């Protein structure tokens, strides 16, 4: 339960905390184990660090700056690329196959932990060197910093040399999405938010899969990689993360919905609840 309060009293909780109202032990045990969110995959690693079985980063983590021209060799050697820039910057050009997890997102390091494979060495793409350092600092809270082997901070334009191209991710406004849904062109919608957000209201006919589970459950999507798909979340950040994963799996006609459901609702467009 998310509470807006940072302190309580023992007496108030005895009276009003739902979990403290049980007389029956079995009913309590059932209550405590229903609807718990899926556990993040890196929990065993965090526990191992805190118990001393894996190394703890004692000093501020560092990773060397690497020229973007080295990145294709690093990818060839098993590195993954995580682009920490905004969804807009990612949309207008990124290294093909990279993940987009925005440093500016409210849960940067958690999202990084959810969507990237735990054992792969990482190259970060950042807007600037201070941003790369901020990203490493945030990752240290979850013990993910040691996976970062290098940072690209001087822009990615040089990637386009030597017959390579930058990948793009088109952005779509909610008004345009609405009109294309009405136009009968076969535009699909994939909503990647939490179930509580989906239940509170979503676009009629949308498909649903939490972005956190995309890497494992992508095969369960009833969507064709050739379909035109607009991906939507709350504000346009998680959907860009989701699109970056879908692109890795061969989805060809993706659109990131600018402003997400916040913009959709603000534009007065209709939703249906669970």
């Amino acid at each position: 339960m998310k509470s807006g309060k940072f302190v309580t009293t023992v007496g108030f909780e005895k009276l009003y905390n739902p979990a403290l109202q049980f007389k029956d032990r079995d009913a309590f045990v059932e209550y405590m184990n229903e609807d718990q969110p899926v556990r993040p995959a890196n929990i065993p690693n965090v526990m191992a660090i805190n118990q001393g079985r894996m190394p703890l980063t004692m000093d501020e983590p560092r990773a060397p700056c690497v020229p973007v021209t080295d990145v294709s060799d690093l990818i060839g050697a098993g590195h993954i690329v995580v682009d920490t820039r905004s969804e807009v910057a990612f949309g207008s050009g990124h290294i093909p196959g990279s993940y987009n997890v925005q440093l500016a997102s409210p849960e940067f390091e958690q999202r990084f932990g959810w969507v990237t494979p735990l054992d792969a060495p990482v190259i970060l793409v950042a807007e600037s060197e201070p941003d790369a350092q901020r990203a490493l600092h945030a990752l240290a809270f979850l013990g993910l910093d040691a996976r970062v082997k290098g940072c690209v901070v001087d822009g990615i334009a040089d990637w386009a040399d030597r017959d390579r191209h930058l990948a793009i991710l088109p952005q779509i406004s909610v008004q345009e999405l609405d009109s294309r849904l009405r136009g009968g062109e076969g535009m699909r919608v994939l909503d990647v938010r939490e179930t509580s957000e989906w239940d509170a209201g979503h676009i009629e006919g949308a498909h649903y899969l939490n972005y956190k589970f995309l890497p494992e459950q992508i095969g369960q999507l009833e969507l064709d990689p050739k379909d035109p798909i607009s991906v939507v979340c709350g504000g346009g950040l998680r959907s860009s993360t989701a699109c970056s994963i879908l692109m890795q799996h061969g989805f060809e006609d993706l659109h990131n919905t600018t402003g997400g459901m916040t913009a959709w609702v603000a534009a007065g467009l209709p939703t249906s609840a669970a």
Partner: protein
Amino acid sequence: MMFRAVQIFALTRLKVMWFEQIVRRETGCATYVIGSSDSCECAVYDPLWDIEPYREAAAARASRIRYVIDSHSHADHVSGARRLAEATGAELVLPVLAEITYEATRVEGGDRIRMGEVEMEMVHTPGHRPEQLCLLITDHSRGEEPWCILTADFLHVGDLARPDLAQPGVEGAETFFDKAIPTLDSLPDFVEAYPGHVAGST
């Protein structure tokens, strides 16, 4: 009357405990600094990896960080306890049941740590993790009854911590019911409770 007011002011300035809740808003992790203005020492409870906020809180009160206490081996974030202890020379304190490979002073339910007017009693509240210790705090400059309890990953505002994060959930919930909740029930209603998470899922 004037004299009395001055006297109380002097007494208060000398001895009353201080307390700071430090929340990392990105994750809702709540951590605590408990200080004695009598002994100019403080204890940090459940510090996160970035230890600067605790050093700043101690420096602002011209206090030495004497104890760094981890309530349990956290599963959802990296503890800053060892970093903080190393950086400040503070004593690292962990539950006797914590399965750790490094050196620390081990404490269990009923153990007390005293800094001037401040007394901190370890309260064993298993369920989220078998080793978890809450901190029941008494400020002897104000009264002999405890004033607050730091409930870490046991009691949250309007909820309990997950029993299934770092152990089997049925076993965890049964332990909450059998051990931790009766302990909570034994405390006076007026005791303030400060959780280890103020938002989020653990």
